[in-house]
């Protein structure tokens, strides 16, 4: 399942939804991305997340579908927040269940690597030097290319 919204998400509730009435999956891997205080040499106070409504949801669904094709997975959950986020806030959640841990780890990392390069979100940081749009990292493209 895919969600894109401004509101924060409840990590504990998302975990419960992944494991509830799910007796066949022995492995649960989750990833959370948080607004951190330092990036590219500047102290960060907050983030603004812009997105392309419609395409965002479609691209996350497509990434989830690709992960399910490549690995034997149980449940896949992706949440991405948009709008203004403060330091320490949760940005993104990816949760994957599988019978085996290797599949769960790989699929979760794959989803994040693809999300970072394919889903139309853009971050604008508020730093001590003012606002700036974050530039895409080549390392993100390289990580996505490895799959």
């Amino acid at each position, binding site marked *: 399942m895919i969600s894109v919204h401004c509101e924060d998400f409840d990590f504990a509730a998302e975990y419960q939804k992944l494991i509830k009435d799910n007796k066949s999956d022995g492995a649960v891997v989750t990833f959370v991305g948080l607004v951190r205080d330092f990036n590219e040499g500047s102290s960060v106070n907050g983030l603004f997340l*812009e997105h392309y409504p419609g395409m965002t949801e479609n691209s996350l669904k497509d990434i989830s579908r690709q992960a399910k094709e490549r690995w034997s997975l149980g449940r896949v959950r992706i949440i991405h927040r948009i709008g203004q986020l403060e330091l320490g806030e949760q940005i993104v959640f990816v949760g994957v269940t599988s019978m085996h841990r290797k599949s769960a780890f790989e699929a979760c990392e794959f989803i994040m690597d693809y999300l970072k390069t394919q889903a139309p979100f853009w971050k604008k940081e508020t730093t001590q030097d003012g606002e700036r749009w974050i530039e895409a990292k080549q390392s993100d493209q390289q990580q996505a290319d490895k799959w």
Partner: protein
Amino acid sequence: MITVLFFAHLKETLGYEGLHVEATYASSVALLRQKLADKGEAWAKGLACGSTLVAVNQTMAKEDAVLNDGDEVAFFPPVTGG
């Protein structure tokens, strides 16, 4: 009619969230990009091929993608979410 959208710093530097053009304005992504780039320096810089991605009807597209009446074309910088 074709809807053209801009995102992130492209939206800010152009001063436009989007605009509408006639269906006959450009028959491919490459032509649309060229015609918009001709509108001025900010447009030429902002729409430079390579630094700006393009989606047609919310799917990543290539330069030779054909445009039809009713299409939604979006130009935007490489994505940085997650």
